[in-house]
Structures are given as C-alpha cells and as structure tokens.
C-alpha cells in the first residue's frame, strides 16, 4: 500500500488505511458506495479496538465478497438470512461483536422476516443496511426500495407502484419493534453525510458492545452501474430523489443509546 514518499516532519498522519481492512482491492464498480461504507466500518472496528473480537456476516448481493476485504472472521450467509445466521453466531458467542452488512434485496425483500424478528428479539447485533434502490448483483432488477417511476431491468417502463408496490421503508418499520435500540437512516452521498454516517455506525457498534439491543444503520447509497449514471451524478441524484422517499433521521434511539459515552 505504502509508497516511498518523504513525509515532512511537521506533518501528522490524519488518514490512513484501516487495519481492519485487508489490502485486497474490491470487486465493486468504480464509484460504488459499498467501498465507502466498507472503509467506515473498518475504521470503526479500528477505533473500537475490536478487530479480533469481531465477526462479520456477508449477504448475498454485491457485498457477497465482503469477507475478502475485512481482516476479521467472516461468514457468508444465504440470501436474506444474514440476521438469522448472525443470531446463531451471537447466541453462542455472546462476548463477540457480530455485524451484518446487507443490501436492500437481501434485508428488505427476501430477508424481511429475519430482519424484523432479529430486531424484535433485540438481538445484540449491528446491521449495516445499504439501500441503493436496486438489485445490483443480479443486474439491476427492481428492489423493494426502488423509487416510483425508476426504470430497472424488471420495471422497464418505470416502477408503477400501483402494480409493483411501494418503496419499503425499513427503518420506519424496524423502529416499531420493541427490541430495536437504535435505528437510523443516513446517507453516504456527500462529505457531511459521510461523516455523520460513520458516527452512526460507531454508535451502532457501541450499542451492541454495551448490550443495549439491536442496532441498524440504513445508508442511502448509489449503484452507478445499474442506475446507468456517472458516479458523481449518481450521488447528486440520490441526494435529491432518494431522500424524498426515504427521509433521513433517527427513528429509534433508546435513552441508553443516547447516553452512550463516545470512546473516540
């Protein structure tokens, strides 16, 4: 990774490659937000000093190979079952930190029951939920989160909600479960939101470590490839269009989570 450059004496290292990430270059398309969020998760693991205690659960979706990029123990779950598998893992490893990393097809379509029930049971798990409004891996079909009118390979004339259903608001739903301690919707689409998202991710991990309940960070993201947009344009478009149907905000935060002390 490192290049032989002379760093002047008066310079502090302020951003470096996270230890919790391997040096493998990802298979994600250029500009894909998955990479940004991976980095943030890696940083949080570093900051909390839990690399050796962390177990990741990869979804089926573009992040299926996430295990290659994190330097932690990992499993690859069946499509939609990440939270069931994570439940099995956490229950027999109560002192470890277990997180799932899932796309919208995985978490909000096929995995709906597993998601809702893991939250409702208050599993001590952290879920990073990448909402890019599309099925990236399989070639850009409509997701449950696809926006009205959006053209995908399985809604060729644009999503007609009256027939194909409406964009599902998972954070709003999860906030209704008794076991959820922290449910927030963020975006990773510009600098302030990226900074904020990372804080949310950290809080979601701390929530688990403190044993406060289930935590889910929904991250609005892009899929430049299947949206057929240039990476930067896709960020702009997402900021405008996605937030309209997926309002940002913290939908549930128990007092205990609010009171969490930040170990920065």
């Amino acid at each position: 990774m490192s290049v032989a450059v002379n760093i002047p004496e008066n310079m502090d290292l302020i951003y470096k490659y996270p230890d919790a990430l391997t040096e493998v270059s990802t298979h994600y398309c250029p500009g894909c937000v998955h990479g940004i969020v991976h980095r943030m998760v890696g940083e949080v693991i570093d900051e909390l000093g839990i690399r050796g205690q962390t177990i990741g659960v990869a979804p089926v979706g573009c992040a299926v190979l996430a295990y290659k990029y994190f330097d932690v123990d990992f499993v690859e779950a069946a499509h939609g079952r990440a939270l069931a598998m994570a439940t099995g893992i956490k229950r027999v490893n109560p002192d470890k930190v277990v997180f799932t990393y899932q796309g919208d097809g995985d978490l909000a379509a096929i995995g709906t029951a597993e998601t809702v029930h893991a939250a409702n049971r208050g599993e001590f798990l952290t879920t990073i939920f990448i909402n890019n409004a599309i099925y990236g891996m399989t070639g850009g079909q409509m997701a449950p989160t696809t926006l009205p009118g959006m053209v995908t390979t399985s809604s060729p004339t644009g999503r007609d909600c009256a027939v194909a259903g409406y964009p599902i608001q998972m954070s709003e739903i999860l906030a209704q479960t008794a076991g959820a301690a922290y449910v927030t919707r963020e975006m990773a689409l510009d600098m302030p939101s990226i900074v904020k998202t990372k804080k949310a991710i950290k809080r979601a991990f701390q929530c688990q470590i403190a044993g406060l309940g289930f935590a889910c960070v929904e991250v609005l993201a892009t899929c430049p490839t299947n949206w057929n947009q240039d990476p930067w344009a896709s960020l702009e478009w997402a900021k405008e269009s996605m937030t309209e149907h997926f309002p940002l905000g913290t939908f549930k935060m128990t007092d205990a989570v609010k009171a969490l002390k930040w170990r920065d």
Partner: protein
Amino acid sequence: MKHEETIISGFGGQGALFAGQLLAYSGMAEAMHVTWIPSYGPEMRGGTANCTVIVSDEEIGAPIIRYPTCAVVLNLPSMQKYEPLVKPGGVLIVNESLVDIQSARDDIRVITLPASDIATALGNPRMANLVALGALAQATGLVALETVAAQLEAHLSERQRKWLEPNKAALQKGAELAR
C-alpha cells in the same frame, strides 16, 4: 463444410458480445447453424467480457468449447488467455492497439491490426470490434462481408444508428487488412 468455433474477447465496453451476435446473425442469414454464448457472472463487475460463437453447416453439439478455431482478442488479458488455446490451423485476430505482445504461434494464422486506432480514426474507438470482425470474416471466409454489413444494418440499435456508415467502414477496413 464450414465450421468455425470463435471466441471474441475484450474489456467490458469493447463490444465483444455484440460482434459475436453479428457473426451469429450473419451465419443464420447464410442458412447455417449458429450458437452464441456469453461468459456471464462475476466477471461482469468490471473485468472482461467474451462470447463463443459457433457457425456451422451441421447441427451444433457443444455450444461451449475450450479450444477455438478462431479467436479475436481485443485487449491484453484476452490475448494472454486465448492465444495459446487456438487450435492448430486456426486464426487469431489481435487488436495490436491494446496488445503489446506478439504471438509466438507458428501453427496458426495470426492477423495483427491496430483495430482501436483504426476505429478512433473512423470516429469512435468503440468500433474496434467491427474492425476485428471484418478481419475475421475475411480471414475465415465463414460469412460474406456483405452479409455482416446487412446484419449490422438490421440489428444496430436505434441509438447507434448514426454510427451505421462508420461501422460499415470499420468492417471494410478490417477485411482489407486481413486480405
């Protein structure tokens, strides 16, 4: 008897799959049996794209082959992968604009041409696939150049229509260089 098993391979955007389809359409137009099958899967994200096209007077058994009788390689990784696999007596078409190594095979016919440069000269580097296809048609005699041009006309998408004439020119130019 005519029978060629061709692999066309390149980067994602280079049009290897479309060139293969054109070849298949042309084979059909000349009343031959054809199969076209893409590589699909994880390679899709970024990576290379290739397809296998079989054109034959006879009914086609295996649509997937390991040793092609022809290979069109539009970039370096494709060259590295397929050059060794071409069957003795076969044809290899190399886009030397992007392939800076040379074939050491002396048991096959190697046609090296600056397809991307030619395409760029004709207005769009994305037409390198057609330059190479022209060369292939010419070198193998599998299908007539006119057939390919006609099929191009029939199957060019609406959006691409404006590129019809330059595309035909690319085919022509490729054929010339393979003569």
